[in-house]
């Protein structure tokens, strides 16, 4: 499957929806992807030699800093080389660490730059805030080794460590290194991807984007639900947005927390969204109505463009959607990694089906 310029709007829409309010602004990545003259090659996992070396890559950190501190262009190549040098394996293909948000697009750009194919899979199936929630961590494969390359030239290899120590190490590095970095993880043989990754997620995001775009601008809730294959939680105006520092752990402040409340035009119900980097929990009139690991997406009612957690503000007209999580996450062995309690929200998961 070749992603051409014509496919970019649909793919961008699809990955932005899967970001669940997080995953970063897709605009810069979409511009870069559109500029690739030959498009970008996406291959099925089954089309690869099972022994093929697949390197997971993505951008980590404050993705909003990406628009202020633009990539030099070499960061990904540096990170992949660092992993290649450390493991002694040449990369045969790349895979995105997170299909939701800009990491759903960026690896395609990088793959074209490096002349490698990109695998139709990712390590999240949606937008995720923490490295230790990636599928290779959730299945016990482990994050180490990992390499980070930041725009001013520093390269860091985290050769070994637990998933949470890798997460902590990467965060500490990002705080000193300008906010964001390109990151590559130790290679995964293509034959092992189905067991430790969400397979087919790039194609699925493209399909989702195509269907939603086909529904046109400002669709009725029913049409929107049908196009997205999900459930419309609310159709209304944002009444209030509140942001505050979340409950950190080990003395360090956590991610910013917040709530946004949408007054449903249909019946006056109040839909409250609890958010961190993503929309995590939706309460309809105080009663939990949807939660992670399902995707909760807020879209501008008129344009249909997904609204990021950091961009939601009161007064805008929105539709709130709940999209089913990838079956990878609803598996009881992995549900604890993404359920609300993993984010410090004391609620049982409320899933679409």
């Amino acid at each position: 499957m070749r992603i051409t310029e014509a496919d970019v709007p649909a793919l961008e829409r699809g990955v932005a929806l899967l970001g669940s309010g997080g995953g970063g602004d897709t605009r810069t990545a979409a511009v870069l992807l559109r500029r690739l003259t030959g498009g970008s090659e996406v291959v099925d996992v089954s089309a690869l030699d099972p022994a093929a070396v697949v390197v997971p890559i993505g951008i980590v950190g404050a993705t909003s800093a990406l628009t202020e501190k633009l990539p030099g262009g070499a960061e990904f190549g540096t990170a992949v080389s660092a992993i290649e040098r450390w493991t002694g394996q040449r990369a045969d293909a790349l895979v995105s660490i997170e299909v939701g948000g800009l990491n759903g697009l960026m690896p395609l750009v990088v793959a074209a730059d490096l002349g490698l194919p990109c695998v139709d899979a990712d390590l999240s199936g949606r937008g995720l805030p923490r490295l230790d929630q990636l599928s290779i961590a959730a299945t016990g494969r482990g994050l180490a080794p990992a390499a980070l390359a930041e725009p001013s030239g520093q390269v860091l290899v985290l050769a070994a460590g637990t998933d949470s120590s890798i997460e902590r190490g990467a965060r500490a590095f990002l705080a000193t290194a300008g906010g964001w970095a390109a990151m590559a993880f130790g290679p995964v043989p293509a034959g092992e991807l189905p067991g430790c990754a969400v397979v087919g997620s790039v194609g699925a995001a493209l399909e989702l984007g195509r269907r939603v775009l086909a529904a046109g601008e400002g669709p009725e809730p029913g049409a929107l639900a049908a196009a997205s294959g999900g459930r419309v939680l609310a159709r209304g105006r944002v009444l209030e947005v509140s942001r505050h520092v979340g409950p950190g752990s080990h003395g360090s402040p956590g991610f910013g927390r917040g709530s946004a409340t949408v007054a449903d035009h249909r019946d006056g119900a109040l839909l409250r969204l609890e958010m961190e980097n993503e929309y995590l929990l939706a309460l309809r009139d105080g009663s939990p109505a949807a939660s992670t690991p399902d995707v909760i997406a807020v879209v501008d009612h008129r344009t249909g463009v997904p609204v990021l957690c950091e961009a939601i503000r009161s007064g805008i007209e929105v539709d709130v959607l709940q999209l089913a999580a990838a079956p990878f996450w609803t598996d009881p062995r992995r549900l604890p990694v993404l359920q609300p309690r993993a984010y410090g929200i004391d609620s049982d998961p409320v899933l679409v089906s």
Partner: protein
Amino acid sequence: MIVRRLLALASWAADVRVLAGAAGVDRPLTTVRATLDPGDVPGAGELLVLARQLRGTDWRIDALLRRGADNGAAGLLLPEFEPLAATRSLADRLAMPLLVTTARPLDLLVEARVALAAPELDRASLLVAAHRAVGERLRQPAEVVTALRDLLRSPVALLDDRGELLAGELPSAGLVRVGEPVPQRTDLDDGVLLAHPALLPGPARPALWLVTELRGHEATRADAVPPALALAAGAVQRWLLANRLELERDARSRAALLGDLLRVDDEPGADLRRRVADAGWRLGGWHVGLRIGVPSTVDTVARTQEVLRALRAEQIDAAVVEHGDGWTGWATFDQEPTAERVRELATRLRAAHKALRRTLGAHLGVGRPHPRAAGLAATIAEAADAARLAATRPESGHFLHVDQLGMAQLLLEWTRTDTFEPAARALVAPLHEAPGDLVRTLAAYLDAESSITETAAVLGVHRNTVAARISRVEQLLGVDLSHPDDRLALHLASRAVTLGS
């Protein structure tokens, strides 16, 4: 209790603020409970006190409000905080009172608990006081009424089963629904009427009602009073049962004594005479028997007092004994009474009977005067016969005095009974089918001692007509009117039929 009443308590009024959900302050409130768990589930009627500081942005406040609304809780109280506008809107939308306080929530909880228990305490202390006032020993109902009136500081009355006042006083006594033998509560303009029946076993008909009326300030105790009223009604019932037991025992011994008395043929023995004297009866002198019959459904023991009252009201000094379906009694004269005195007695009895018939379907028979013990049995037997006849004689007001009748008339009256009349009709039936007024002609003919001439004069027809009719009667019935038995039978039959039609 409702949330609004709680908010009116002194410390709540001073320290608690309704942040949102004010539309729900009339929610019913049964208890106030404290918790430290924001995931707690408020139960129905509960006001949940979350004794823990939460951030105003905490979504669990919203979830608590919703769980409370779903379960019918009364509200939510938290330490002072500034909620999100969305949380306020939700509380308003769910009409779930969201209260905050700067005071210590647990102090407020204690005061609320005390206030919630107050009605129960009031009820309990009133009940104890009522028990002390009426519970210890057997008391007259009037005493119970007085004690209860002092206790409730409100008018109390005792009503009978028809709602008539027996003791105490009550302006709105007429509002008690005596047909419904259950505790009653009726709202008045500025108060409440509470009634409790005192029942006797057997027919589910309250014998008495204990009623009170709480007005003005006292009306607020309407929930506290019913148990005390029920206790007092129990005391009245106890008195009724004890009284009834005594009456029953008394009635049984008198009925047995009367039975013994009626059985002796000659002068009673010394033992029997002593028992009669103990009962306050006199065997000497002249007796006029009376018999009051009632339908078998009437509770005679319970209503003896009513009968005695009716007789006493007419200044009749008579012994009365519950006996079968009714009462047997007699009045005694020292000397043989003159016809004048007997008539006067009969007039008074008639008046007493009339009074009794207002509440009792009674028929009364009166015997002739007879002397001494043997005469007592005789006059009572006559009275019983007369009463039996009186039962079927609405035209005489179900009252019959043997003296007025003479024995012959008594016999004739007997022909009006249900057993004789159909037979009489059957006997003269053939005459009805033939032309000519044969039944009346036959009756007139037999009354005129078989005189054709007199019969013709009575009926206003020619004597030949009478002769022809009589011979047709003899033909139709196949009888011989010169035969005494046939004449007697036909005479009675024709009288019964002409009187009956």
